[in-house]
């Protein structure tokens, strides 16, 4: 069996994997909202900074 069959099937397989990833992404709604995630991404730092404070606060109120 020639190597070309193997190479071709690998290339098609890789393409199919990406294709499936695309379908899964569309299904999960990743393309429904293209703006909010771009903003949400920038919040991550502040959330980490705030965590110790929040625990302090809950102690106080309790």
């Amino acid at each position, binding site marked *: 069996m*020639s190597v*070309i*069959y193997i190479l*071709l099937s690998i*290339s*098609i397989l890789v*393409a199919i994997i990406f*294709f499936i990833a*695309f*379908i899964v992404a*569309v*299904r999960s*709604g990743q*393309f*429904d*909202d*293209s*703006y*909010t995630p771009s*903003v*949400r991404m*920038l*919040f991550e730092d*502040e*959330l980490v900074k*705030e965590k110790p*404070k*929040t625990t302090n*606060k809950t102690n106080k109120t309790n």
Partner: protein
Amino acid sequence: MENNTCFHCGDDCGHHPIEFQDKHFCCNGCKTVFEIFNENDLTCYYDLENSPGAVPKEIEGKYDFLIQENIIEKLTEFRDETIEIATLYIPHIHCSSCIWILENLNKLNPNITDSQVNFGKKTVRVTYKHDTTNLKSVVLLLSSIGYEPYISLDDFNSGKKQINRALIYKLGVAGFGFGNIMFLSFPEYFEVNEFWLDQYKFFFRWLMFALSLPIVFYSAQDYFISALKGLRAKILNIDVPIALGITVLFVRSTIEISLNIGSGFFDSLAGLIFFLLTGKFFQQKTYEFLSFERDYKSYFPIAVTKIDKEGHEDTIQVYDIEKGDRILIRNEELIPIDGILINGKAKIDYSFVTGESQTVTKQSGDKLFAGGKQTNGVIEMEALKSVEQSYLTQLWSNDVFNKNKEEGFTNITNTISKYFTISILTISLIATVFWLFVDSSKAMNVFTAVLIIACPCAIALSAPFTFGNMLRIFGKQKFYVKNASVIEKLAQINTVIFDKTGTITSNKQSNAEYDGELLSEAENLVLKNSLRGSNHPLSRTLYSILKENNIITLDAFEEHIGKGIEVKHDALNMKIGSSSFVGNPNKSAILNTTVHVSTNNVYKGKFTFYNSYRKGVSKLFNKLKKHYDLVILSGDNEGERENLTKLLPAKTKLIFNQKPEDKLDFIKYHQTEGAKVLMIGDGLNDAGALAQSDVGIALSEDVNVFSPACDAILDASKFKQLFSFISASKSAIKIIKWSFVLSFFYNTIGLYFAITGQLEPVVAAILMPLSSISIVIFTTIATNILGKRLE
């Protein structure tokens, strides 16, 4: 930072700001929100944007209906033993601070497990444990921090919405196949008769065949369906030659590779479908935060408070209201049915219905119409009809609302495709007959080649790319158009009809003119100061119009609701208010709104209010009059006729006292006479006219809040540019016609190869994408130039 603006909402704090932690607040509401955030370590909210907040509104009792099982059932998208998920529409979402605070709701209420914002749709999807908290407390929490959700009768009916993603899947499949087929077909183009390639070409070809199957049978299925539908209706739409081209491409390529004649046209086939679908996708510009399909249900509440015979208050669903029920309407609540006022001072704002923002005062026993908003405390009313039978809502039982406007409209592409299809078929038949006599072996080849090369990919792409880009350009200019065909219809308009109130008049300011005995300086002073103390909308308006005066203290001030005010200062005893209240001796039948003044029981004169027209109305009408018939269709009385005739060009028709149905019938009548009508309106009373007209544009002061069902929404600030928008639509049609010319040019080149029997797959593979791409480039550049001119 400006010291006098509210730290929370950015409004002017006035002379006496509320101070808290060295920060200024305009009202207690804003301060409370800040306190909530401060206590929960959420002040980061203010770091992201300056003054992002909104003043929380008084909502006591407003959301009591949210504890009813059947209403919760309708509003939540998921619920089980412990968890409920609800998506709430919040109009105030406008910046990154909003996203941040709403996604940190769990810090304010630990029973909320997750909240996710969709900024485009202005919604937040909240997941919460409903055994420890409930929908009502989530909504109350949101309202208390200034993010009051908008819950309307529409949410009750619509249920769970499904998003249609079919086009993205089809585009994905086509793109996947197109890319792979391109790779597989390249070797044969460049390395003709190479040994290894010869060895494996069958494998390559059948692989391409396999990849093309999902493209033809899945991605392209809409074209076959549409072509069949068109043929059945005896219309040669653009999808007929496309479907024909796809079929011929696929069949001929399959035969070629089966009989080992050639490599087939699979790459052209995949490319064609991919480009066509891209065009379709591009044309779908949607404004997620706008809705073009709203009817009265989007504005009506889900439930109201009913008072039963024993005086118990009970929330019932709006659809369950029966004739004779006693209903409680709180401040800022909408009246959902026609009825009679029983108790309380009604001050009704009918701006949803008519566009007129001046409130109307009603007394016990007066009739109240559905659609008005109470603005002055609690009232009680008795229902006269059920919801669907009310004066306003009855309009929606008219047939126009069930009609699809797209039906019966032949777009520019389909108009041309009729001639195109016929000429292509003629050319292919003539060429085939010719070759049958000259070289019959080539006849079938030529016949299919003509159909393949003439496949109107470029033509089919012209309109979607032009209109798609125009939609985006208009959107940037705050003119939000529903879809591509609206632009096309806008270009064909020959009659423009305007609503008056709220459309050509601005509901922000009005003008007043004094008529009568000249007031002395002292009288003026007292007048101004007494108006200052009154909260009546007319007093507020008049106060802002009159010139600045010193502030004096009045000796006595008494406000008679529904009549006027009586004040005393030194020797002056002044009455301001309705004609009968001040004792106007000459009763006249004047239709305009007036405020009368008398001093020491001597009648002085009256202030007459005139609508203030939007800036640029006169200029706009003068531009429009050269090309269009102009009509003003007003629901109001004739009080403004004189002013309008002065302001507008002479040939403008002025028609007054039009009920919503009259407006609709007026348009219908003119359409039967061949008029293509553009209707511009704003209130729910224009909804019928907007639906009946060829193009209905809703003018809106705030696009997020209100607009009836229509074809396009125009921001009020851009009203004077209306003429430019119409001319831009006309230019867009011209661009499409030029790109048709361009694609005919490509078709002629292709036809030369096809008719002479020299169509190699590589020629098709170059010519087809080349024509498509150059059309896309041409239309994009041309529309962008057009957009520049608009700015």
